[in-house]
């Protein structure tokens, strides 16, 4: 069965981080137009990531000896909530900070930790995650990209697709086959760290429907990897990938993707004075969803802080979280169009249009809704 989620209070020492972050965001992010802020963790700004690093806000949970702040998951929750709530362009460092850093800390050799972690903390090493392939989306275990051991390391061949930020990152952690065939499924998969500047590697950005190019296709043509490209245990890649998912799926980024639009609409309602009161119920409904999901996300964070791996609970939060992320533009599109005589600012309309276009991706990225529900069903003992 799935674990009970206990209501949890964020520790005061972690809450104390909030003011300094808020102060910084007021100067750097609040002035950006809302449709830019609506891109949130898809918004890429390497300079902004370096500014965060200078203030010690990257690698918050990594040990001090590797350049991190040695704090726990609650501190990271507070930081993430402030960044995402403001719509800060955090994409450059987001994956390294959320996933790659903790993965390297958990499975890496001492040398790998010493090399990568301080660079992540200084915003000098941006990471992407190579999972999907042209013929392997939700069926991830069918991947065919292969790393073959040579006398001096590995040779990598194949391709990845839909890789967020591959064209502007320094490294990829790729899930590849190191033994067996596609029919062997989870067996024989491993994770390797690929330096994206290596010869034989081609990255082709893919433009999305909102006009941005945040993901890419990556081709590996006899790319020569050093022996220490392997991260963790050879053949254990599937388990390692799944251990990451609790980090990836339960955070505020699965709840707040439409928050900038909600804030913009709230201001729009308030500007209408008394007439704005008619939207109290739909506004309140969205707030109840968000508040409950926030409490659930904090509760999953508490499990992470206790060293548990709440993969199924995180899956539940993600599926429900992306539902409210998609509900917000859908509901607001109707409401804003229901009063044709009330002018809607161009920036609010652009923010709505951006989220309407991109919202379907919220329940694709990080595991599709259909896959997640299968995982929940397994947690409930149905499969």
């Amino acid at each position, binding site marked *: 069965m799935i674990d009970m989620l206990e209501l949890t209070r964020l520790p005061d020492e972690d809450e104390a981080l909030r003011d300094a972050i808020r102060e910084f965001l007021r100067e750097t992010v609040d002035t950006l137009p809302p449709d830019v802020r609506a891109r949130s963790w898809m918004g890429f700004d390497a300079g902004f990531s370096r500014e965060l690093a200078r203030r010690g806000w990257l690698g918050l949970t990594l040990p001090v000896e590797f350049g991190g702040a040695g704090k726990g998951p609650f501190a990271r929750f507070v930081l993430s909530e402030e960044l995402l709530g403001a719509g800060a362009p955090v994409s450059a460092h987001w994956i390294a900070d959320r996933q790659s850093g903790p993965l390297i800390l958990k499975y890496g050799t001492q040398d790998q930790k010493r090399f990568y972690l301080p660079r992540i903390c200084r915003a000098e090493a941006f990471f992407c995650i190579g999972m999907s392939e042209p013929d392997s989306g939700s069926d991830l275990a069918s991947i065919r990209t292969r790393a073959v051991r040579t006398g001096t390391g590995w040779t990598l061949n194949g391709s990845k697709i839909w890789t967020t930020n591959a064209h502007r990152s320094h490294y990829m952690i790729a899930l590849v086959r190191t033994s067996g065939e596609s029919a062997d499924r989870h067996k024989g998969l491993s994770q390797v760290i690929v330096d994206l500047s290596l010869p034989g590697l081609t990255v082709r950005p893919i433009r999305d429907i909102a006009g941005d190019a945040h993901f890419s296709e990556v081709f590996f043509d006899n790319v020569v990897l050093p022996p220490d490209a392997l991260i963790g245990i050879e053949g254990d890649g599937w388990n390692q990938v799944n251990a990451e998912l609790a980090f990836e799926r339960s955070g505020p980024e699965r709840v707040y993707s439409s928050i900038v639009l909600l804030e913009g609409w709230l201001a729009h309602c308030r500007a209408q004075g008394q007439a704005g009161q008619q939207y109290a119920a739909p506004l309140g409904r969205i707030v*109840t969803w968000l*508040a409950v999901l926030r409490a*659930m996300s904090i509760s999953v964070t508490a499990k992470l802080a206790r060293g548990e791996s709440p993969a199924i609970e995180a899956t539940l939060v993600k599926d*429900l979280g992306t539902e409210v992320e998609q509900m917000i533009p859908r509901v607001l599109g109707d409401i804003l169009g229901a009063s044709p005589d009330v002018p809607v600012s161009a920036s609010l309309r652009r923010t709505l249009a951006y989220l309407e276009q991109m919202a379907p991706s919220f329940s694709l990225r990080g595991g599709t809704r259909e896959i997640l529900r299968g995982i929940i069903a397994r947690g409930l003992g149905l499969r």
Partner: protein
Amino acid sequence: MDDMFTDAFERLLGQIAAPAAVRAVDGGASAEAMWDGIEESGFLDALVPEAAVGAGLTLAQAFPLLFAAGRHVLPVPFGQTMLARAWLDAAGVASPPGPIAIAGFGVKRQDGAWLARDVSFGRTSRWVLASTDTDCVLLPVASAQAQHGDVPGGLGATLCWPARPGEAMDVAMPSAEGAAGLAELDAVCHAVLIAGAADRVLAMTLDYAGQRTQFGKHIGRFQAVQNQISIMAEHTWAARMAAQLACSSAGWLPRPLGAALGKSRCAEAAPVIADIGHAVHGAMGITNEFDLQLYTRRLREWRLAAGSESYWAGVVGEALLRDTRHGALSFIRSQFSMEQA
């Protein structure tokens, strides 16, 4: 909340509120014996301060008890009586024995008569604690003309007193300006009841999906069914968290917006959970004989009772529109974080 305490209450409910007993009360039988068992257990004074010989629990500590009452669809107002006793104690009024329902939306005067409409648990209560225009009043159900049976098997009643009854007791409003009133107290109770009943409906549905066989396999093996049950599980978990937020209070009195949030989110989840429960159970769930209906009927009744999701969402939304110091997210943080114990 001590687990042993909760376990003892669960055991008691297992004895006195088994499905057959609930079914009997739904059918019109007296709930007095059931109530006596609860009264004797001492749990009803859980929220009354220790100085007044209660257990002095906070509402957050009492959450598992309220949740257990929901899981067993206890047909008497356990949570309401618990809160009413704390309310009466704070107002300096000695609590009478017997179940107390709460008429959160008040008693209205009409041509000299006193009218409390659609009082949830009105049918199985001896008293009703109701707000009036200025204060509140504790009214005896026995002297009212009661109209129930509007909804078959329902526990609600519309109560009308031709004149102020002699046994009525005036109760000063013990809570401060801006604090939770009786409407919020009743809302919290129903929120947790929904969360508890939802938990039971999910468990029954999982059982059934793991037993019923069609096309040569358990129906729970079909993706379409798994998809439905996963949605149900998500809403069940959300309702439980919403109910915990509603009870998150360092005292016995709920925080007013927490109560609003809890009732709104649980009420929204209730029909989703009931509908999927029935979808999975097929025609069997529609039969009177099968117990599923005891829980799903209550989910729907409790959704409407004490204000539905849109009513309480409106309360939350109005508070946010008014509070211009906050945007949406900072409002959520300030109002709906766990209360410091």
